[in-house]
């Protein structure tokens, strides 16, 4: 059995009993920090700068011409581990001039932020580079429904990102200059 060792109490010295040296040491630390650079932020008014590869809330983005990039291939829905994504695919009518050369687009796109685990698989799998986990990280709501991001909200959060493909423009170009039938 372990033996209990009894420590002997040493009485405090005079200077220790006045507490003054300890107070001075403490104040020294306090005052020296007053002249150093600030490390705290006035959250939520002030927000930290987010690194480029941060995985925040998944959003849908448009190309620089303001055209929808998502073609509702549902690969993100397939790959999503917590099944947070739900897409209702839809066909783009032939005569839609603003969306010519687009055949398929999501009719509804829902991401349930109560289920999302911010893994970024959706961004990784997207063949059209339409879904990005951006720098927004905080979402709140009063009801469960509010926490499901619908298509409008996702585009509002996503905005426009620089694009080097211009897929729809290239499709138009191919039709005009390519090997048309």
């Amino acid at each position, binding site marked *: 059995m372990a033996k209990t060792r009894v420590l002997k109490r040493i009485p405090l010295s005079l200077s220790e009993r006045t507490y003054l040296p300890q107070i001075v040491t403490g104040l020294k630390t306090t005052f020296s920090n007053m002249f150093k650079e600030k490390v705290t932020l006035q959250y939520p008014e002030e927000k930290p700068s987010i690194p480029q590869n941060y995985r925040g809330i998944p959003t849908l983005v448009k190309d620089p011409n303001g055209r929808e990039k998502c*073609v*509702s*291939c*549902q*690969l993100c*829905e*397939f790959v999503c581990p917590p099944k947070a994504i739900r897409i209702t*695919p*839809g*066909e783009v009518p*032939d005569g839609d001039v603003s969306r010519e050369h687009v*055949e*398929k687009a999501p009719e509804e796109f829902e991401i349930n932020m109560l289920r999302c685990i911010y893994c970024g698989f959706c961004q990784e799998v997207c*063949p*059209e580079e339409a879904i990005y986990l951006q720098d927004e990280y905080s979402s709140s709501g009063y009801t469960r429904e509010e926490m499901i991001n619908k298509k409008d909200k996702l585009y509002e959060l996503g905005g426009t990102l620089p694009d080097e493909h211009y897929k729809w423009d290239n499709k138009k170009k*191919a*039709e005009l*200059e*390519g*090997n*048309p*039938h």
Partner: protein
Amino acid sequence: MIAPGKEDSVVINLDGKDVSVPSGTNLVDAAALHGKEIPHYCYHPQLSVAGNCRMCLIEMGTPMRDRGSGKAVLNDDGSPKIGWVPKPVIGCATNVSAGMHVKTESDVVKECREGIMEFLLVNHPLDCPICDQAGECRLQEFATDYGRGYSRFVERKNVKPKRTRLGPRVTLDDERCILCSRCIRFSQEVAKDDVLGFVDRGSFSTLTCFPGKELSNNYSLNTVDICPVGALTSTDFRFKMRVWFLKETRSICTESSAGSNITVSSREGQVYRITPRRNDLVNDSWMTDSGRTLFKTVKAENRLVFPSVSGSRVSLTEAMDTAFKLFKNKRVGVIGSCKSSLEELFLLSQFCKATKAKKFIRGHFGEDDGILLSADRTPNLRGALVSGFANKYPKSDLSILNMALQKGELDTLVVMGENLLDSKVDAASLSGTEVVFLGTHANETSKLASVVLPTLTAFEKSGSFINRSFYVQAFLQAIPGPAGLIPDLQILSNLISSVDPESDLSPDLKKIWIAMSRVRNSPLKGISFSDLKQGTVQIDGSKWKNMPFVEKSALHHNPMMKIK
């Protein structure tokens, strides 16, 4: 093509191994029998051989013979010397012959496949993210398995129309077409409606309908199924759901007595499409377009979703109790349906026994198209005969019931989904009779009924049907039924046990099959439900050979042929 040999099977050498294959088969099928895949696009086992995709190129050789003496030329070690064909040949148009040597994995064959894949992909668009075929696309599969893996094509791809309407149900994406001509051969050979053809030359070749014609026959959607790529798409299923989400369930088409084998594709309790399932005894690989739309009735507006007594919603137990009071010591008439499953009809005839009820049944008849839409538009008329519910061939109306009603012979009617008012039964003669309606959808009769017990559609339950050639085929539950509803078999067995508390009939399919096969002289003797899950079982229908069956001779059905 080489004429099939006289022997039943021949021995060929497949990649250095001697294997026995049925004579008369081609190399694609023969290799598949022994687990070797020879990739192919244009070849389809149930269509003629076109040999235009060149994907099934293989190396082939036959034993050499001396021209003068006709004797086999031997190697130094005494084995027969093989004369290899100097260039690769296509497997689909080469029939097996004794002693034939085949190489399906040689370097030459691999190079051929890489070359063919490269040419096919030259003008193929990168549409996979939006292509409905993705996930079940031969081009995707073979590009992964046999392709080069990268593209050397730097020129511009061809641009072709993306949504050409070929007919009311089929949309063509020209860019994706690899010109295999399966759809053309199907239209000519199976649907016998020659409307498709290729126009223009080289890379401008395009599939099109002949001027003034469209692909509108009742088999048009089979072209979508056999299209190895996503060129032909079903206008109804187009862009609805990616195929990898769909759960596939084996089922049987309820449209007519042809009993086409089908696959029901559903996701989360919703059916998205119906496709044919290959069964060389019944429907080959085909089915009707009209049969593919039947799943839309599952979510129809007039679907009965809750039990009711005199039009007001009640609990299921309450409805059953009310129904029981209507049978107890009453003169009951039961109107069965040829749309019910074999097991339901068996339980229904047990119910008739328990209540000493009179049995009535009607048939639904239409035109016979000679392929897979037979004149009998119910899936299980023969099931009504075999289960013992009907002993005469059903007429197309219920005028016998009308006579019995007018004489006042019946107090209560149990109706299985049929509409009495379009079966020559007057509303006037129904007055004074209580009606218990069991069915999936509301009709004029269900509105008159005192008790309505909603039942499930064929997609929501399991069971079996007997088709026009006396094949018993099982269908399995694909989706759950509406909340709170129980299967027809459960309702029937509850009703039976309320009338006859000593009855030991269970709603379990296996137990019903045991009970059915125990019936004296039953043609179902020795068959169990799990046998049906393995495949189609033909039963002896000679007992009914003198019945005036309405079906004409059609695909895999010959009414003149003596029934086994």
